[in-house]
């Protein structure tokens, strides 16, 4: 008889206190949330709304009529093959070609390889020739391909409201050039975005020579160049700090989101993960201390995290610097000045001392990073502290950058105010949208004679401009950029400009009035002039081939930091936290994790990519701390705020319904929905940039609110004196976080480093399977490669496919290093032709993304009914786990989802009839259903059925990966382990093998899309039947565990449990991660204490 293993029933108390809570709803255990848990898709996901019966019949009648018309065309359609007229060299039809290029983003370039099919770029990968990034990319880079094929981009230039031909634009530029040559540039002002393109800088120099009186101003709403400006002053030469996290054993971040919003985040993430990865007990692991006001990706990775208002961070910076100087016997004068400045500040001295001691102990292997937005004094103090630690030259280097100066936005505005500017030339950027609120763009437009705009979108700035010159995408242009480490990178076109666009360099060269204006020639000249005496053509060819100019990185400066210079910057008293309350709030402005400062606002992939922390899509929110929420709740005349979590009636369908609040700073106000976010400094309100655009494309229209409306030029990154006011309105939020919750079992397994050393099996001893040995343990001691193929079922009675394939594919995900940055999510979307569904459909729980990154909070208390302020964040990417005993397979009535012999759980779209039984039976909730024909229908016309427009936009067609089927309505889809990449690797190997039996793919030949994009290298994929493959090695690590392993579904994807590395000498140190504490508290309430201690 079959032995039934009885799982212990949870008791009532256990149900009352969830171990993990993923959303505030879950804490509140509302009926809405309960129904979420019970249902496969959220309520409403499978209901046809807004169409009543009568309407339905009407639509159906129309569709039958159309069907009748269609019957006439039953004959085989004649298709044509149009070969090249003259076959270009090196193009093999059907094989992708890769070209090195780089994506310019806020001054720096990100080295990329563009995959092109028949000269049509379809996918962006990182360029592995650039060592710091090792071929990794980030979220916007992955998504940038969609901007190229955006039907809403500016497709033509406009002059005085009329379409301007190519020659009209040229004439306009020539005319400007002539006009200002005589005036030596007086009256001409250029407002540009930041760029370190050597060619653009060369043109800028030429411009300064020809038009000495012209103003060149650079403005970015998020300015990451402040440390560079400061360091240049301190050292007396142009220099910037460059961090090497791979050497840093101890890192202290002072409000610096170096893994999230930082120009060098790819290299940072990679290096940080290198220093964090533990392959076996005894390995070294870095430790991250983090002080921050917002909840960022960096904060999520922290081992010790302190919530602190940004305004108060300065005092902490001084305290850390003073502490380091004292313990290292550094400059006592500086130390005394620092100590004097913080004499009156209220500081958590114990926390500071614990941290400083640890930093000093590790000396040159420590690193302190200060946020770019902190005061100059704070940043200088941190530089001094790093010098005292001996970190300069090790974990931080001061590298010499090129001379660069530009007028600030204040200087330009003064000139505009004085009527000195006649022509304002706006080069990229979008000042009308993102200038601080105290500058009125309308006013500026009136003050200056004319505004000429060069930009990629016809946006707010273009609206009032006399001329809009359409820009080309970086995949359509010649150019150059610099990587954050200074390496010069090429920008080379993959495709002829799709529309009538102009290259930035061409426009500038024409404005300057240069003879040579071809962008290619300009770049050629710039790059080859840097390598004198060599064959120019060869230098340039190598430059384009490698995607970088060898040895062009910034070199370390020889001068060292003088403590005197730092001392001179210090104020007599550090800014403090005094006076913050709910009537005097601090506001912190951040770039959105997806759409940045609004430049990617019209990118559907990014709009729909959930924020890694809040899990909101398609909009931003006013983030407030739980404590502040409680305080406001008491204050509110109408307790509307409470419905976010307390009033169960309001969340019947599990939709987050947020009250709309008004954020007031001075006289400026903005309205937005509120979202309660654990981990924020109590009186800090966080708003993200990028939303609330008034003139943008169809995707970005109407999403979120504009944070720039309450931002002043003197406090561009954080401000004080804000208040929140109730408006009485509410709004449904497209939050994906409630969906597919896993009822808080041992989903993410965590351990502390120290505990792990003592108990390496700590990851196996939690969770249900540790109690169910019969099912799972009988072949436990077999090597993985044998277990996978020989006893794949365990003791399961279910039939099982024969896993006879040459390879057996498997994946491992390292949760210790995953920051949750979402690069994999969009990489997958881009590779696998995954559509977007729109805000309305996300609210209904129909998002299509094959990877989701679950974010869990743990607060380490038994009673989770109160929302905690201090939480530990855990991230877990979940995609199809490719179970060997896949529960989706036996329930499919048409065999549309079956196993192949290499262990893949495959989907045959053409067999699928859309019963959705498989999704119902999937314990991981990773299957996605095409409720509509997302690809063929307009997102705002989904419910019109056959009456709506049909057909994919020609531009979107160009982006699709030809190696992957585009799915239609009514079929199920899910992660395929990039089966197209596997197949093409197998085919390539067989082609190489010819008449030999060398058909096994060597390990590491190819990468799956998420793995290739992951900047922390946390995803490993390969053949588990080969015990020497990298993925087999990963899976042999002690941390390896299976998600819901007790179900005996035998997933091929396993997770490496997360290790945290707290310092036992810190006041907030816990012997166990909070999530694990909660696990014990809930499962073993009686013996909790003894378990936690052992």
């Amino acid at each position, binding site marked *: 008889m079959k032995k039934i293993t009885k799982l212990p029933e949870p008791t009532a108390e256990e149900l009352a206190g969830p171990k993990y809570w993923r959303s505030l709803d879950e804490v509140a255990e509302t009926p809405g949330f309960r129904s979420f848990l019970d249902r496969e898709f959220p309520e409403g996901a499978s209901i046809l709304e807004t169409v009543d019966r009568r309407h339905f019949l009407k639509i159906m009648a129309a569709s039958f009529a159309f069907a009748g018309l269609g019957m006439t065309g039953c004959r*085989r359609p*004649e*298709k*044509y*093959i*149009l*070969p*090249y*007229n*003259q*076959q270009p060299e090196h193009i*093999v*039809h*059907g*094989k992708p070609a890769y070209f090195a290029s780089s994506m310019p983003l806020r001054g720096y370039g990100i080295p990329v390889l563009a995959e092109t099919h028949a000269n049509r770029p379809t996918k962006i990968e990182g360029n592995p020739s650039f060592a710091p990034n090792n071929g990794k990319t980030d979220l916007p880079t992955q998504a940038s391909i969609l901007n190229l094929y955006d039907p809403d981009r500016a497709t033509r230039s406009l002059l005085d409201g009329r379409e301007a031909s190519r020659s009209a634009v040229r004439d306009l530029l020539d005319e400007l050039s002539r006009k200002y040559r005589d005036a030596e540039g007086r009256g001409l002002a250029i407002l540009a975005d930041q760029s370190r393109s050597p060619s653009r800088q060369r043109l800028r120099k030429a411009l300064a020579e020809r038009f000495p009186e012209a103003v060149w101003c650079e403005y970015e709403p998020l300015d990451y160049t402040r440390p560079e400006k400061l360091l240049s002053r301190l050292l007396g030469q142009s220099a910037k700090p460059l961090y090497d996290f791979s050497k840093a054993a101890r890192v202290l971040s002072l409000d610096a989101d170096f893994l999230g919003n930082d120009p060098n985040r790819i290299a940072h993430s990679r290096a940080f993960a290198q220093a964090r990865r533990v392959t076996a007990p005894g390995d070294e692991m870095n430790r991250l201390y983090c002080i921050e006001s917002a909840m960022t990706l960096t904060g999520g990775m922290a081992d010790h995290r302190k919530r602190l208002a940004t305004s108060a961070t300065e005092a902490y910076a001084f305290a850390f610097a003073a502490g380091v100087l004292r313990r290292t016997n550094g400059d006592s004068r500086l130390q005394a000045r620092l100590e004097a400045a913080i004499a009156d500040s209220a500081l958590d001295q114990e926390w500071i001392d614990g941290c400083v001691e640890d930093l000093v102990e590790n000396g040159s292997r420590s690193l302190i990073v200060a946020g770019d937005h902190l005061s100059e004094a704070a940043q200088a103090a941190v530089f001094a502290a790093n010098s005292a630690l001996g970190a300069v030259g090790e974990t931080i280097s001061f590298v010499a950058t090129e001379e660069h100066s530009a007028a600030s936005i204040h200087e330009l505005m003064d000139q505009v105010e004085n009527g000195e500017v006649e022509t304002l030339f706006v080069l990229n950027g979008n000042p009308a949208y993102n200038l601080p609120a105290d500058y009125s763009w309308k006013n500026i437009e009136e003050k200056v004679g004319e505004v000429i705009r060069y930009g990629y979108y016809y946006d707010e700035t273009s609206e009032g401009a006399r001329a809009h010159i359409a820009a080309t995408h970086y995949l359509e242009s010649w150019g150059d950029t610099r990587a954050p480490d200074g390496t010069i990178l090429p920008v080379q076109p993959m495709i002829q400009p799709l529309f009538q666009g102009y290259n930035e360099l061409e426009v500038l060269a024409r404005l300057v009035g240069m003879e040579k204006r071809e962008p290619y020639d300009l770049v050629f000249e710039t790059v080859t002039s840097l390598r004198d005496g060599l064959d120019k053509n060869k230098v340039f060819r190598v430059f384009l081939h490698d995607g970088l100019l060898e040895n062009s990185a910034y070199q370390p400066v020889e001068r060292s930091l003088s403590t005197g210079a730092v001392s001179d910057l210090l104020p007599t008293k550090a800014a403090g936290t005094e006076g913050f309350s709910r009537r005097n709030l601090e506001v912190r402005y951040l770039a959105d994790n997806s759409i940045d400062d609004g430049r990617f606002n019209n990118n559907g992939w990014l709009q729909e990519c959930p924020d890694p922390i809040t899990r909101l899509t398609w909009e931003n929110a006013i983030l407030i701390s739980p404590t502040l929420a409680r305080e406001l709740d008491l204050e509110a005349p109408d307790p509307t705020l409470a419905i976010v979590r307390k009033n169960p009636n309001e969340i019947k369908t599990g939709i987050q319904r947020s009250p709309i609040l008004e954020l007031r700073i001075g006289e400026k106000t903005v309205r937005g929905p509120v979202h309660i976010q654990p981990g924020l400094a109590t009186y800090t309100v966080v708003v993200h940039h990028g939303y609330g655009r008034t003139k943008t494309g169809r995707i970005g229209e109407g999403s979120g609110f504009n944070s720039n409306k309450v931002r002043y030029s003197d406090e561009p990154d954080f401000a004080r004196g804000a208040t929140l006011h109730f408006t009485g309105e509410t709004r449904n939020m497209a939050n994906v976080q409630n969906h597919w919750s896993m009822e808080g079992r041992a989903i993410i397994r965590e351990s502390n480093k120290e505990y792990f050393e003592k108990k390496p099996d700590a990851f196996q001893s939690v969770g249900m399977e540790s109690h169910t040995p019969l099912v799972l343990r009988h072949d436990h001691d077999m090597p993985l490669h044998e277990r996978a193929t020989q006893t794949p079922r365990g003791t399961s009675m279910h039939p099982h496919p024969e896993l006879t394939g*040459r390879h057996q594919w498997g994946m491992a995900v390292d949760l210790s290093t995953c920051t949750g940055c979402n690069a994999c999510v969009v990489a997958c979307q881009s590779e696998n032709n995954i559509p977007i569904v729109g805000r309305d459909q996300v609210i209904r729980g129909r998002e299509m993304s094959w990877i989701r990154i679950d974010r869990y909070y743990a607060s380490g208390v038994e009673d989770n009914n109160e929302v905690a302020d201090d939480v530990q964040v855990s991230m877990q990417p979940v995609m199809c786990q490719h179970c060997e005993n896949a529960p989706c397979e036996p329930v499919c009535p048409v065999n549309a989802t*079956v*196993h*192949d*012999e*290499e262990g*893949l759980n*495959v*989907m*045959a*779209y*053409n067999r699928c009839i859309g019963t959705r039984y498989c999704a119902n039976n999937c314990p991981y909730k990773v299957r996605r259903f095409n409720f509509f024909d997302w690809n063929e229908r307009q997102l705002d016309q989904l419910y019109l059925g056959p009456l709506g427009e049909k057909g994919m936009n020609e531009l979107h067609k160009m982006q699709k990966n030809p*190696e*992957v*089927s585009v799915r239609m309505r009514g079929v199920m889809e899910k992660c*395929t382990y990039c*089966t*197209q990449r*596997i*197949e093409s690797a197998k*085919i390539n190997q*067989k*082609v190489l*093998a*010819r*008449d*030999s*039996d060398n*058909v096994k793919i060597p390990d590491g030949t190819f990468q799956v899309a998420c793995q290739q994009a992951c900047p922390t290298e946390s995803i490993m994929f390969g053949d588990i039947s080969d015990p020497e493959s990298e993925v087999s090695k990963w899976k042999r690590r002690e941390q390896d565990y299976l998600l819901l392993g007790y179900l005996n579904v035998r997933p091929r994807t396993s997770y490496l449990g997360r290790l945290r590395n707290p310092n036992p000498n810190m006041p907030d140190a816990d012997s166990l991660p909070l999530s694990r504490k909660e696990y014990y508290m809930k499962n073993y309430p009686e013996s909790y204490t003894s378990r936690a201690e052992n």
Partner: protein
Amino acid sequence: MSSAFPKWTNALPIKIGIILLVLFATTVVGITYYFTPKYTRVGYAPTQPVPFSHELHAGQLGIDCRFCHTHVEQSGHSNVPDTETCMSCHNAVATDSPKLELVRQSYESGEPIPWVRVHALPDYVYFNHAVHVNRGISCYECHGQINQMEVVTHDQPMSMAWCLDCHRKPEEYLRPLDEVFNMDWRPESRQAQLEMGLEFKEEWDVNPPLSCSGCHR
């Protein structure tokens, strides 16, 4: 009492039954015959814009397949040659043949020649030429005796069952690699083919995919 139904109606149900049965059988047989690729696709020979004869070029002149279909060994697609390939010979040979008018026009104007597609697989099928021709499957197996075709004709049904016939028993079709592009090569006997095929299958580790992921992505 007169009966409500005359006597002849007694046999009616049986007659109707038989007619329905025959109708059903005819429909089934009809659909299986007329609506499957064996009928709908085999024999399809559309008129091409240029009356190019494989019989002349590949047959009589003995030009290798790969002279024109250059990428067949590297790529999933077997490319149709560009106009320049045609003109590389035809600027010297048959320079004023009226049949080549379109080719010359195309060469001058840069407009591609609109060849009519003969073999079309559905979009969700990812067939790969390179892996087949590099592993001992001849062009002949799918395209037939193409060196004898005046006009290219769809020779095999190219249905999924037909693909799987070979994927299940590759030994029946494997041939020495140097004979892959030889349309006239035939095994001595079926027995000889099987022996050789099995040997190749063993030696080259031929194990064609039988699951969905092999061809559908």
